[in-house]
């Protein structure tokens, strides 16, 4: 990124308030509150789903009923009343959309305000966007360009209609519905999300992007993303999220599955900026996400990059199952918590194939009264000869009321593999701060500079459009963190 851009960002940042807290007034089609088999049938029927999808949902729901909310994370979460949530909310459609003109102008306006233009001519160059508003995908841009390459990029609902075989084959293949409590819930009630298939040997010419927006009060968002990269293909995928400012908490439980076949590469980047709650910890999104990639074929590669600044509670562990020999998994993360935010996040790398490699770079930054935990699992199975993992998890503390914790689990059952984990925790260096101040930079700006520098290793993994956004977010998230 150009230096002046970096600077513009820092200059622009003058207010620490959440910028995306507005609410869009739009007619919604909503299910009644609560969860039972009828609601699931209702959702499935609304979406005109084939039987296999309904069956899948019901199996997941029945499994969910037998499960308990996980309590092992370093998080304090008030009890969630799952019967007090609306599981389906969609902007009312008058008819099938055939062009952008038919999208509700209120919606277009919402996304414009969020900096996401759905009009092709105004698009960020080289980024195809799928915009998800509450439960459903509103618009996918660039689809024609993509079609030329045989790439399927559409909402999950459309994929269920148009590519049922692919969906049936891969849904739940990486994250089975019984994987965990939130994955089971998502599998039962997921509303929409993005679907992406890159055919053999195709290098996707644009960045694919999904933008998630929670709008309606009392709704939960349960999106489902499935990415399949066929042999020798490549795709870079971006995900962004925001939500209005509300006093009550809202639930977001997503599932992302990635399958990379032989020689395929998938890069998945997230800038997560759900509403974090106010300065006193009121409101905010509960973000329980299961993201997992399967390096199914040999020499395949999946790389996760995440910048987590939002949400009242973050519970997510994007990981890779390295099944194919010589496959590679990567995880780069910056997680910032301020005020009363809580994050328990990290990665899982499961080495099964031979010569598999994984890298974990995690930078945690805690400020205010927040708690920020890295939790990771590196597992090397007996078969995974000559596998390697390197993990580095650093924590930076700003202020003496916050906490930074590191829980790395490492298991090996193989004598030719090497696993290394390193971590440090320290406060922001007073010498660095004074050095900046001596050059005339005030404390808040100096912290912004130093923190962005600290996170550089991760930020540089992001595609440029996102890197700009991410840098801004880091500075904004930390404003007011120094007294």
């Amino acid at each position, binding site marked *: 990124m150009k230096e002046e851009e970096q600077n513009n960002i820092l200059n622009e940042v003058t207010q620490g308030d959440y910028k995306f807290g507005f609410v869009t007034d739009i007619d919604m089609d909503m299910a009644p509150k609560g969860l039972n088999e009828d609601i699931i049938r209702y959702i499935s029927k609304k979406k005109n789903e084939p039987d296999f999808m309904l069956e899948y949902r019901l199996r997941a729901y029945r499994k969910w009923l037998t499960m308990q909310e996980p309590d*092992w994370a*370093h998080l304090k979460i008030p009890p969630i009343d799952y019967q007090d949530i609306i599981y389906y909310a969609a902007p009312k459609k008058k008819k099938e959309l055939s062009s952008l003109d038919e999208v509700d102008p209120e919606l277009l306006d919402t996304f414009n305000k969020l900096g996401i233009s759905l009009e092709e001519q105004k698009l960020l160059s080289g980024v195809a966007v799928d915009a998800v508003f509450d439960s459903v995908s509103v618009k996918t841009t660039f689809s024609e360009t993509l079609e030329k390459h045989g790439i399927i990029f559409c909402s999950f609902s459309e994929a269920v209609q148009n590519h049922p075989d692919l969906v049936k084959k891969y849904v739940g293949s990486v994250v089975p519905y019984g994987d965990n409590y939130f994955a089971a819930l998502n599998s039962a009630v997921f509303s929409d999300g993005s679907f992406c298939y890159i055919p053999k040997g195709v290098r996707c010419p644009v960045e694919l992007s999904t933008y998630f927006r929670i709008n309606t009060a009392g709704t939960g968002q349960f999106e489902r993303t499935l990415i399949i990269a066929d042999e020798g293909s490549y795709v870079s995928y971006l995900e962004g999220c925001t939500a209005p400012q509300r006093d009550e908490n809202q639930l977001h439980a997503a599932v992302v599955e990635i399958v990379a076949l032989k020689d395929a590469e998938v890069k998945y980047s997230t800038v997560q900026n759900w509403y974090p709650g106010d300065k006193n910890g009121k409101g905010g999104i509960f973000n329980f996400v299961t993201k997992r990639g399967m390096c199914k074929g040999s020499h395949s590669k999946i790389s996760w990059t995440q910048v987590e600044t939002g949400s009242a509670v973050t519970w997510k562990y994007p990981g890779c199952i390295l099944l194919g020999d010589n496959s590679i998994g990567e995880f780069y993360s910056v997680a910032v918590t301020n005020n009363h935010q809580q994050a328990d996040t990290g990665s899982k790398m499961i080495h099964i194939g031979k010569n598999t490699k994984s890298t974990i770079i995690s930078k945690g930054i805690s400020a205010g009264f927040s708690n920020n935990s890295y939790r990771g699992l590196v597992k*090397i199975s*007996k078969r995974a000869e000559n596998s390697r993992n390197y993990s580095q998890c650093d*924590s930076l*503390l*700003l*202020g*003496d*009321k*916050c*906490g*930074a*914790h*590191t*829980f*790395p*689990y*490492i*298991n*090996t*059952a*193989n*004598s*030719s*593999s*090497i*696993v*290394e*984990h*390193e*971590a*440090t*925790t*320290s*406060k922001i260096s007073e010498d660095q701060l004074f050095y900046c101040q001596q050059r005339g930079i005030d404390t808040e700006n100096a912290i912004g500079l130093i923190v962005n520098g600290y996170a550089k290793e991760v930020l540089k993994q992001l595609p440029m459009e996102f890197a700009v956004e991410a840098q801004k977010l880091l500075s904004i998230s930390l404003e007011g963190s120094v007294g």
Partner: protein
Amino acid sequence: METKYNDIIFKEKVVSLFEQNRAQIGANDTTRMSKERDVAFKQFKKVGFPNKKMEAWRNTNLKDVFAYNYNIQFSPADEKPELIEAFQCNIHNFDTQTITLYNGWYLSEDKHLITLPNGTIIGSLAQAIKEYPELVQKHYNKYTNIEENGLIALNTAFSQDGIFIYVPDNVKTYKTIQMVNILDKEDNLFIQNRNLIIVGKNAKLTILHCDDSYNYSRSFTNTVTEVFIDEGAEVDHYKLQNLNDNSTLINTTYFHQELQSKLTTNSITLNGGLIRNKINVVLNGEGGEANVFGVYLVDKEQHIDSQVFVDHAKANCNSDELFKGIIDDNATAVFNGHILVRKDSQHTNASQTNRNVQLTDKATVYTKPFLEIYADDVKCNHGATIGQLDEEALFYIKSRGIGDYDARLLLLYAFAAEVINKISIATLRESIDDLVKKRLRGELAICDQCVLQCKDQENTYEFKIDISKI
């Protein structure tokens, strides 16, 4: 299901044993101790034995331990071991004051409690309760946490005897006190040892704590040790474990450190069936220093679990943890480190390292170095590695004409030596050094005496490689 079955049966047996023998178990108790014993028993009854569902026990399964029957001795055996002098270990030039627990009971020719010329009192805890009830009561059961797991509660309910050491203020004991735990019984034993060590202000104590078995009988030892280290005091603590493959040893030590005190504890595990060393350190005064080291060498079906919890409860303290292990055959090694830096414990320096060399694909290593930090002006780091010997180093050594086997031994020895070298008593260091070399060469059987190999003194094992060749 079977797991549950075994541990429940065992629990029920233990509960009824307690109820039947309640009067005898608490014969020496003060009123307060008796009350605490009942509270602990209730707690045990409630929670039972630890199981794999508990985070701290997820990788250590006691299932197989409960598959056997064990006997509890509620009084010391009448017969004395024939070879009592055989247990008097003496490393060349290493003058120790030895105290022995024999099958869980204090063993002595005459007095059960002695006072050294400098005022230090050592001997049987049961006897200390009788003679110094005030002193014992001031610290007994003060640093344990019976809610930590069922075994701590069980120990508190059942314990009858153990070692008692009291070092008065300003007394420096230059002679190392050696605590020897010997298991020698034909039938399976279940032992609940309880040790209490009190080190006064500015005092100094060096302890060598050995766990040995004398034969191949099955045993289950559940030891709880409390060590109180007062202001400015210094404790050097060495734990040597060389038990048979049928033994289970759950060793829980609570170190409580006051202002400016210094602790070095070093756990050296050479052999054992299932060994779990839980070390709790509370830095309860500013300027405290805790060094927690360990080395473990496991093979066959052995299981070693090292759990270290360092609580930086006050500001300006330093802690340093280093655990290294070599895991061979089907053995399993577990390391769980936990550093807690409490709010306001500013200027904390804490470091935590676990390194493992895994020699076979059948071996398993679980490591979890965990930091929990609530103060900002701190320097904390941790690291964990699991790997093999450095191929380049191996090649380098071989290129100097040393065979593969010896080259590997040499590197393994060098790997372990980092911890061994931290032993500050030269004579002890040398003899442990020898033991480690022997262990690595597979020459260390369960010795027919104590772990310190006194019998073989003339015949010290030399490492075959002349290091000067490299």
